[in-house]
């Protein structure tokens, strides 16, 4: 038997607003080793025609995590609590982004998660939760759609 709370299949989390702050965004880019100043220096980004520094390709995951933190502060469950994820046996299976537009420092975006499915693999040794996250900007529309599979190693 699995650990995930499969009754959450189809559940959509309430929209959470996340402000993409310049300092944390630049800190992330530095940490992953990014050296292109378009991700680090607002002057370079603005000279290139952007409103502020650009978010790197995997920042959608960070925005999703920040939305989780904000949900917890509001007294709402985060994704792992919702699906009953167990960190001791949890692995990240897959992560995928479809890009519709860039994210910049200063953007205030809305994050919504849907628990799309639960599946089993390797004869029940693995159970997999599938989650889709949409990041939307109030005027520029959908920016990134992210899908993720989270695995429990069972037995």
């Amino acid at each position, binding site marked *: 038997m699995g650990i995930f709370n499969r009754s959450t299949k189809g559940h959509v989390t309430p929209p959470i607003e996340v402000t993409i702050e310049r300092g*944390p965004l630049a*800190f*992330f880019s*530095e*940490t*992953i*080793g*990014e050296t*292109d100043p*378009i991700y680090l220096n607002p002057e370079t980004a603005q000279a290139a025609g952007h409103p502020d520094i*650009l978010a*790197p*390709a*995997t920042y959608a*995951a*960070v925005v999703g*995590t*920040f939305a*989780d*933190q904000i949900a917890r502060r509001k007294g709402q469950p985060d994704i792992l609590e919702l699906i009953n994820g167990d*960190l*001791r*046996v*949890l*692995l*990240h*299976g*897959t*992560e*995928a*982004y*479809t*890009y519709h537009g*860039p994210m910049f420092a200063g953007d205030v975006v809305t994050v919504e998660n849907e628990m799309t499915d639960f599946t089993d693999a390797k004869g029940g040794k693995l159970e997999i939760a599938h989650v889709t996250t949409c990041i939307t900007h109030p005027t520029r529309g959908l920016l990134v759609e992210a899908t993720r599979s989270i695995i429990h190693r069972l037995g």
Partner: protein
Amino acid sequence: MTVTPTTAQVGDKLPELTFGPISRTTLALYAGASGDHNPIHIDLDFAKNAGMDDVFAHGMLSMAQLGRLATNWAGQDRMRALSTRFTAITPVGATLTCTGQVVDRHEEHGRVLLTIKLAAHIDDGTQTLRGEAKICGTP
């Protein structure tokens, strides 16, 4: 001649990217920067209690390198999609070698779309991630 998204053909390779060695400091910083505070990556006591010999790197830290490989080559504005499967754990101390190769180029709705096969390997040759980027190749 340097391969660019507008000139790339099937079989062309993107410039390689290496990252590491991945220290415990890197993992601590990545935990803070990404908001992923899962202790399995930063707390040896927790990792041992969970049956692991040591902490291991966040998969997303490696995916970030595949993202850098793609965007350093093409620019963020040409990125249409990025996906990865995490195929093995990345241990502390590992250095990643990230590679990309054009595996498809076709026109879709009047636009050129490239498919790039991506992979990350660690020092002993183990593949830790495999993935794919969709990149616009329209001039």
